[in-house]
């Protein structure tokens, strides 16, 4: 599959999202619905995106945004897949069965953001201690031991 075919395919599959896909920078951004996230990832895997670079999350207050970075070594192209996840029900399907590299990345997101991943083989904390309370990268995380930086620094 060439880049032009990939672009056509993506335009057909995601009609309202495609303007973000730019070949000039050899990567693009796909904003997908949480319900269609799994479908899109499977689709991209089939298209030849054989490498998962990273998975991360962003806290926007009332919702999280999951970010998957996929690259294809045969097409020499990369793509970001972004999906919004509501804060109240922060749970998505794991991508470990598609790319094993997602294992520890998803554990890290679970650890620091508290987003649960369904069907993850080993979903427990990875960076913090097992008895940690809370998820520190959430914006509303409260910890009494944090010393706030004074204004003059």
């Amino acid at each position, binding site marked *: 599959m060439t880049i032009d075919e990939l672009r056509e395919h993506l335009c057909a599959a995601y009609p309202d999202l495609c303007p973000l896909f730019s070949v000039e920078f050899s990567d693009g951004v796909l904003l997908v619905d949480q319900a269609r996230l799994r479908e899109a990832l499977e689709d991209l895997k089939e298209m030849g995106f054989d490498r998962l670079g990273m998975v991360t999350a962003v806290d926007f207050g009332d919702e999280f945004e999951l970010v998957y970075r996929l690259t294809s070594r045969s097409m020499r192209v990369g793509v970001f897949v972004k999906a919004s996840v509501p804060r109240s029900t922060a749970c998505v399907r794991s991508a470990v069965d598609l790319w094993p590299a997602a294992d520890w990345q998803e554990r890290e997101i679970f650890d620091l953001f508290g987003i649960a991943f369904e069907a993850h083989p080993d979903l427990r904390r990875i960076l*913090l201690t097992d008895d940690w309370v809370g998820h*520190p990268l959430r914006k509303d995380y409260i910890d009494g031991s*944090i*010393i*706030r930086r*004074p204004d003059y620094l």
Partner: protein
Amino acid sequence: MAGVDEFARALEDTPGGGVVLTSIDAISNWARGHSLWIMPMGTACCAMELIAASFSRFDFDRHGSIPRPDPRHTDVMVVAGTITKKMAPSVKLLWEQMPEPKWCVAMGNCAVSGGIFHHDTYSVIRGVDEFLPVDVYIAGCPPRPESLQDALLRLREKVRSESISPSRRRTVEGLLPLPGGEKR
């Protein structure tokens, strides 16, 4: 150490025993102070300076300090780097495995006070002296190996002031005056 304390007390009570006592002190302190083997507790970039210290340019072997990766062989734990809350129990465990007498050097700002991670962080211990008895603090981010050398020589002074008799132990005055004129 109870047996040693009793032995020292008996020497103190014996006429002429002080000569024996001070000779034992002098020999043991000389031996201890000149073979301060290092437990390299390197967790971050300060460890690079700690590693450099034991190689040919700085060559701490000439002070009798060599790094040993086994806590049971060592006298000084040099905590070189940031200690996180998850790492702290491991550091404490290694410290407890070291045989007495043992000393601790907090190398670099992270080990002294948390350094650049002092503010706005949830995972870092703010200074290794929260759970270890630190003898010498070295400031720097990271400190140069010369600073570590200075720390070891100061530690040697501290070792020299020790005695097997509890009544003869002296405290070594630090360099930095605290507010109010006290020295620490």
